[in-house]
């Protein structure tokens, strides 16, 4: 029940976007609006996924960790949609141009890098993969923080003049990163 509701909640932004697209209420440039929205929701859920272990530890609330994988997979789903729409609307599936964009433009490179990391993490999130990776699974999945750093810079590079949103995301991302680093240090000194 809770699991179904969780998935529904995570799908909700996508459903609203799909409805807005169909009813033509995304404004004058719906392609761009959709790319921005899928990007921002990738970011939102990425922050949620990183917030879950913090909340779980602080409030002794292990049950929330059961949903971490579900949220993580949705992060990848939104990221993939974001990337696919960019490929389709902005590059017209021209993979030569994609290669040029990746080498020429740091924001595309960082976005692509973040997506690759998320793809690697999503594909190693199946039960057999977790089993097979064993003790290496955990260090591999701390790369989600590298994806976060890429995403933060990716967003900061989009600024033309107004910096309020990207900086807010960078600040929250930085907080979560600091908490993780503090915990890593604590784990090291404890041993």
């Amino acid at each position, binding site marked *: 029940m809770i699991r179904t509701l969780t998935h529904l909640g995570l799908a909700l932004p996508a459903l609203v976007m799909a409805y807005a697209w169909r009813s*033509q*209420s995304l*404004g004058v*440039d719906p392609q761009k609006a959709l790319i921005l929205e899928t990007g921002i929701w990738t970011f939102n859920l990425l922050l949620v996924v990183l917030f879950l272990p913090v*909340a779980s530890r602080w409030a002794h*609330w292990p049950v929330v960790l059961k949903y971490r994988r579900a949220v993580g997979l949705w992060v990848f789903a939104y990221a993939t949609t974001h990337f696919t729409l960019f490929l389709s609307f902005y590059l017209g599936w021209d993979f030569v141009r994609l290669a040029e964009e990746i080498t020429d*433009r740091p924001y595309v490179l960082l976005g692509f890098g973040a997506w690759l990391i998320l793809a690697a993490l999503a594909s190693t999130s199946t039960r057999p993969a977790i089993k097979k990776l064993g003790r290496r699974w955990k260090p591999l999945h701390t790369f989600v923080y590298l994806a976060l750093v890429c995403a933060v810079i990716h967003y900061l590079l989009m600024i033309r003049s*107004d910096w309020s949103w990207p900086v807010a995301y960078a600040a929250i991302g930085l907080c979560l990163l600091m908490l993780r680093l503090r915990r890593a240090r604590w784990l090291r000194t404890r041993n």
Partner: protein
Amino acid sequence: MNRITDQNAYRRRRLIAGALGLGALGTFGALRYGDGTVSAEQADKDAAPGSDEPTVSDKTGERLTHKFAATHYNNAYEFGWDKTDPVEKSGGFELKPWQVTFDGLCGKPGTFDLDELMGMPFSQLEERVYDFRCVEAWSMVIPYNGRSLRDILSVVQPLGSAKYVAFTSILRPEQMPGQASSFSTLDWPYVEALTIEEAMNPLTFATFGVYGDQNLPQNGMPFRITVPWKYGFKSPKFVVRITFTEERPEATWHKENSREYGWYSNVYPDISHPRWSQATERRIWSETEVERIPSRPYNGFADQVAHLYPGDQKQYR
């Protein structure tokens, strides 16, 4: 602390953590969608009649971008950074009275009312259809109402020593929320500038309306300059002062980031913006139709303006 209070403390923490997460999402939703960024009602209310039909200029027969699209998707950072801010936040902007001051190196400096600058009734002004090409790689085809800027400039008699013309936009933070915003890094008022040859080119258009409509602050009315072979930000909006100078004036976006926004900023498809390609543009025809098309040197006006830029194009980027 005994086990019961321990449990209570954790229960409280769970509430706090849950509230923090939901609160963050709620705040996000209110800030991002609360002002109607994605608003179906807005689109329905203002939708142009017959909005699936292509619109065509009465005078030239050219296909135009729908007025709804051209008036609901604008960059006017004076009102805010979002494309819908100009239409949504310009309600309090007073278009009248409007005066323009001419000063600097000219024989007859002075201040003129808008009617004097038009020199004829608004309805008799020329209509010109130009492709508006934004530096962000989208474009729209827009009918502009006005007259060649040089007809106005020649009245105030620029001196031979005048090499450049600076255009200063209005500073009115009480009516322009983007100017009042502490999040904006731009230095207000907005200033753009052209060389005297560019300003006197017959293509450069003193603009008093678009789509036959003078009441569109989101499009820079009541008075803007349209320079069709350059990226859109080189076409200053809400102009109140025109200054002739010998030294090259600083321009707002160039000052903000000269690497990304060149002083000349002619449309050169071969020269990329550092963050994206300028080889193609997304032509916005309406809310439902966007077409990707190749961009053209000087936005299609190479015949008429390329001679102004001898030598390597890079120096005029």
